[in-house]
């Protein structure tokens, strides 16, 4: 139901989410982010271009890292969301709490600014 791929690009860890994240699969997203943090990455890009659906379980994973990322000076930017997924973040105003970019190039520019 969900596939997560990680690759490294310009010093950033790119986590690509493919498929649907719900209560049964959110743990995999959590593990991927935790791995990235554990390996010491300070720039995490989350490629949402193949993310078809996210429920509150997935939203909760992103929210749970906000404070930790502030403390550890880790920047995370999500990008490439389709309209339905973007709307899910907007319903609760989470787009104000997380860094969300339109595409990869905007995400890279944003993450470099956040790291300054």
């Amino acid at each position, binding site marked *: *139901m969900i596939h997560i791929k990680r690759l490294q690009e310009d010093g950033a860890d790119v986590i690509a989410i493919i498929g649907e994240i719900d209560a049964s699969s959110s743990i995999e997203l959590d593990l991927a982010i935790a791995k990235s943090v554990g390996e010491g990455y300070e720039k995490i890009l989350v490629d949402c271009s193949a993310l078809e659906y996210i429920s509150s379980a997935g939203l*909760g994973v992103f*929210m*749970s890292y906000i404070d930790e990322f502030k403390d550890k000076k880790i920047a995370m930017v999500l990008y490439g969301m389709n309209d339905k997924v973007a709307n899910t973040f907007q319903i*609760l105003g*989470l787009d104000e709490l997380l860094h969300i970019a339109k595409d990869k190039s905007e995400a890279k520019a944003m993450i470099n600014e956040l790291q300054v």
Partner: protein
Amino acid sequence: MNYKYRVGCSIENLKGVRDFIRKSLKAHHVPDLEISEMVLALDEMCSNLMIHAHHCNANDLFELRIIIDKDKPYIIFELVDDGTVFDINEFCEPSIDNIVHQKRKGGLGIRLVKSIMDKIEYKASQGQTVCRLTKNINK
């Protein structure tokens, strides 16, 4: 038109629930963005029921009904279950700030349901609990 779907309380079945709702609403030309919001709200309600009332026991079944009347400007969803009642109207959901600071991974779902649905009602009937969610739609 009424649609019914019986589902076992394993969270692995949530994908099937979402596909059933999408397919049923698409047949009535409900706009895509509205479908995706209703799917989201029902996914939350069903996962709550599976996890909290039935402890993910796949042998426990509940029924999801969708009631669509083309002359009515709303769609009704009913979750019919014989498990423990959990009235989300009586649940005071944590603030977003609390969720962030306490690193809680839950607590957002009920907030989503209340934001998306227009009415949430519960009634008991013949040993079963019916949770009825009403969503107004733009015709």
